[in-house]
């Protein structure tokens, strides 16, 4: 039998606010919910969601998936060539950011980037031929995510590009990302002029070997402590990587000086990294990928294991629904634009870098990064609020990544699709903004939210997987 007599009533009020006030004025304890219909008001999905709330199978699966994410230990092991390290990277394969997308549907920057990569690979020597090649289906395209990799913005990885090799020493999986080219006219924003290709070649032939020798000399570099330190130094390791890049170079210089690299090679390496405050982004991203991949594929788990954008669609993967992407049209980011540009010039949201938010960093760790709080409304208080708010849609927190401004509170991590749909609190994503035309480059930066629709889509298949 229900037994109320021994307990003081403690009420949560859904609906008419006056009921809550009446209870309070009668001396009772009640709190009012800022309720709105879940799932965009789709009551059928809302009803399925209700069945999943506090469902034993999902809770157990999420504990397992989240536990794996927490235990993962990504370590920088070296730099190698994409085709020699990424699985199934055969022939004329080019990988891109986000969910799979056909060549003809790709956004401008991604196309531009692919054309540049074809020239870089030496398959053709001009853009016209490169386009013909792509049109004729001579290049196979696939998502970075399908090859244990992630890529910022267009996220293009072609076979001979150098990649960071990240080993998860706890579970044995690997993750990869290209080296960051810097700002301005760069391939990841769709630029493909000769100077861009030249820089990529230099990175392949000189930078990559120098970096690799340095790493081999220092030994594997644990990345979680580096990320954690960077958070304490004002990075959120997505849109701000100044601290992380500085910490990295400290490690690399010592290794490089002890390696066989020439004085000049070391000088060029140091000067390249010093001139690029985003260099560390390409290490924070594969670290997150390595941590999240081990959480993927736990049956019944409602944990998001990837958020990714290909410039056309915003997509997520969910642990318990492996093998599927849930997609919806990518939003255009309402951010801050460089002089001369506006939202009209912007490509839709692009890049795999939202893997950082999926892992509890980036926008989720905004409180760590007061310097860029203008993106979230101006004041550090807004940033704190944002980081705290994300706690409401995650499975738990990651005490390895802490936020000084919130009394060293752990970051919110492990997005739970059920909580997103139930609260309509959307995961925030800090992001750069690419010009919609190939080759122009970055035109701004800002904050966006993952669209509710992708999370709503997961409820029915999740329901099917747990309720017979």
């Amino acid at each position, binding site marked *: *039998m*229900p*037994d*109320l*007599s021994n*307990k003081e*009533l*403690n*009420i*949560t*009020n*859904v*609906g*008419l606010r006056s*009921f*809550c006030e009446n*209870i309070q*004025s*009668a001396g*009772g304890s*009640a*709190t*009012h*919910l*800022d*309720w*709105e*219909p*879940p799932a965009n008001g789709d*009551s059928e999905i809302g*009803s399925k*969601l*209700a*069945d999943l*709330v*506090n*469902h034993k199978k999902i809770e157990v699966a999420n504990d397992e998936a989240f536990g794996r994410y927490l235990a993962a230990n990504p370590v920088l092991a070296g730099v190698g060539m994409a085709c020699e390290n990424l699985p199934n990277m055969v022939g004329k394969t080019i990988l891109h950011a986000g969910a799979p997308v056909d060549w003809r549907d790709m956004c401008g920057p991604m196309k531009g980037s692919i054309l540049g990569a074809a020239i870089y690979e030496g398959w053709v020597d001009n853009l016209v031929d490169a386009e013909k090649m792509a049109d004729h289906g001579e290049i196979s395209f696939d998502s970075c995510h399908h090859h244990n990799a992630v890529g910022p913005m267009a996220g293009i990885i072609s076979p001979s590009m150098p990649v960071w090799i990240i080993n998860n020493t706890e579970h044995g999986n690997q993750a990869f990302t290209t080296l960051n080219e810097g700002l301005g006219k760069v391939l990841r924003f769709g630029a493909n002029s000769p100077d861009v290709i030249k820089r990529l070649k230099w990175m392949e032939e000189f930078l990559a070997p120098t970096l690799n020798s340095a790493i081999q000399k220092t030994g594997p570099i644990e990345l979680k402590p580096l990320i954690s330190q960077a958070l304490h130094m004002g990075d959120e390791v997505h849109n701000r990587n100044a601290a992380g890049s500085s910490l990295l170079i400290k490690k690399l210089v010592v290794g490089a000086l002890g390696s066989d690299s020439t004085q000049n090679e070391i000088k060029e390496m140091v000067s390249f990294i010093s001139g690029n405050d985003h260099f560390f982004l390409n290490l924070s991203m594969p670290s997150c990928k390595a941590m999240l991949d081990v959480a993927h594929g736990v049956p019944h788990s409602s944990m998001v294991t990837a958020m990714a954008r290909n410039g056309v669609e915003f997509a997520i993967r969910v642990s318990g629904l492996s093998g599927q992407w849930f997609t919806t049209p990518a939003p255009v980011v309402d951010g*801050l*634009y*460089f*002089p*001369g540009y506006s939202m009209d010039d912007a490509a839709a949201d692009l890049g795999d870098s939202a893997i950082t938010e999926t892992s509890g960093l980036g926008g989720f760790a905004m409180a760590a990064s007061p*310097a*860029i*709080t*203008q*993106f979230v409304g*101006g004041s*550090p*208080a807004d940033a*704190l*609020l944002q980081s705290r*708010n994300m706690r*409401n849609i995650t499975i738990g927190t990651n005490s390895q990544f802490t936020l000084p401004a919130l009394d060293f509170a752990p970051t919110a991590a492990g997005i739970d699709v059920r*909580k997103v749909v*139930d*609260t*309509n609190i959307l995961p925030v994503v800090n992001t750069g903004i690419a010009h919609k035309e190939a080759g122009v480059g970055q035109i*701004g*930066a800002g904050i966006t939210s993952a669209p509710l629709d992708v999370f709503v889509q997961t409820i029915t298949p999740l329901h099917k997987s747990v309720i017979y």
Partner: protein
Amino acid sequence: MLKKHMILKNHYSDSVALMRIAADLEALPGILQATVIMATEANLERARAIDLLDELIEAQPNNILIAVSTQDANAAAAAFSEVEMQIKNLSSNKDLPTTIEPEAKSILMSVERNAELNLALISCPGEYAGAEAKKALNLGLNVMIFSDNVSVREEVDIKNIGLDKDLLVMGPDCGTAIINGLPLGFANVVTDGPVGIVAASGTGLQQVSSLLSQWGVGISQAIGTGGRDLNAEVGGISMIQGLNTLLEDNKTKVIVLISKPPSNDVAEKVINVARAGSKPVIVCFLGWDDKRSDDLVQFARVLDDAAEFAYVKVNNGNVPQRRNFEINCGVEEFDHNKDQKYLRGIFSGGTFCYETQLILSDSLGPVWSSTPIDQAFRLKNSWISQEHTVIDLGDDEFTQGRPHPMIDHRTRHERILQEARDPETAVILFDVVIGYGSHANPAAEILTSIEGARNIAAKENRHIDFVGFVCGTDRDPQQFTRQIEMLKSAGVKLAESNSKATLLAVSLIKTNPVTKDYK
């Protein structure tokens, strides 16, 4: 087009902050384009590239450069002073981080914040209410669903989950409950005591709990079930669960069950559970004739009887001291004219409307209604009375686009005036329901209507009697006694309960010398 710039020396600001300021500048009238940057070589290059700088400028990397293109030198000057102010604000805006936590957005969120939660009160639109109830139950909370428009299938689902988890499910369409002394939804502030109530009728629960409380007998728990609980499809799940809960509850000594007449099967099921217990149970299935009353299970035909029987059980055979409002009501003034033959009952409580029909059909004969007990007497037009008519203005038909008449008196006001215009109206009977959720001063609203009605009737030399009662207690925000005094001062003939008020109205019709011939 003019290109203007300004340099602020020895200032450093993050580029993101400066971009925000530049965006504001571009919104100013007369400014075509603006950039605000730290004057590093790379940034200057960028500004030149978009043709914002046409002169050699001398700036250091730790200077802030503001450059605009404009048609108007004054606009540029205004822009520059705006920037200076904003840049100063960047460093002086030192509000402390906000500590106010926004309201929770979901039941789960509220549970995560407060592990002590044990009941969810749900009044969101009906199509979402079932899902919210399931969430609450899945999280171990009891639920009260005020919302209606929840499907019967969903109601049965939810109630079964509640049974399974030993959690109370009150509703859907449960208007009122009193749990551990706390009024929920539309409810009265009653004293604590030995009588437990389970009710499928909100106003029924309010009537019985208020009467008992006025007589000095308190309530242990008053559990609502929702109006459909005793239908064949639902099968009385909540009433039986509630009854069992009260049978086990140490504080409860006497139990009252209230419902419109259930299906026979469900009634027998409920009665059997009552008989299997060891506490006196008063069963009030309105109008239900059952001769099987005994020491354990006693049947009451109307709410007033149910309250009185419970009082008698608690007080070892003593009857309550009735308040005799009728003394002051001047029954001798039988001054209806020959056409004034009919009673008009204008209710805000559905159960009162039902109960009044029961009593009238015993005493006056046919009664028309928009919610008739006997379908043969359904009003052809709910908005127009005929002969004896009683209507429930709380019914969906009357509440389209308007709040419930217990909150918003406009519909009732119009209807009372309309009845006053009808030369056949002799007596207008009404309920005044107070307590949490109801209008802050319903008597005042009614008095306005009565005054209007009397003016209309007086012009045609008619006198209309007003008969009413107040459902509530002195501890309600509107205060029972205050409401009674207001009505009394306006000459309303008052009774203690709905059934007593109805009988009083009947007597005014029957004893009127002119209308005596009718019947």
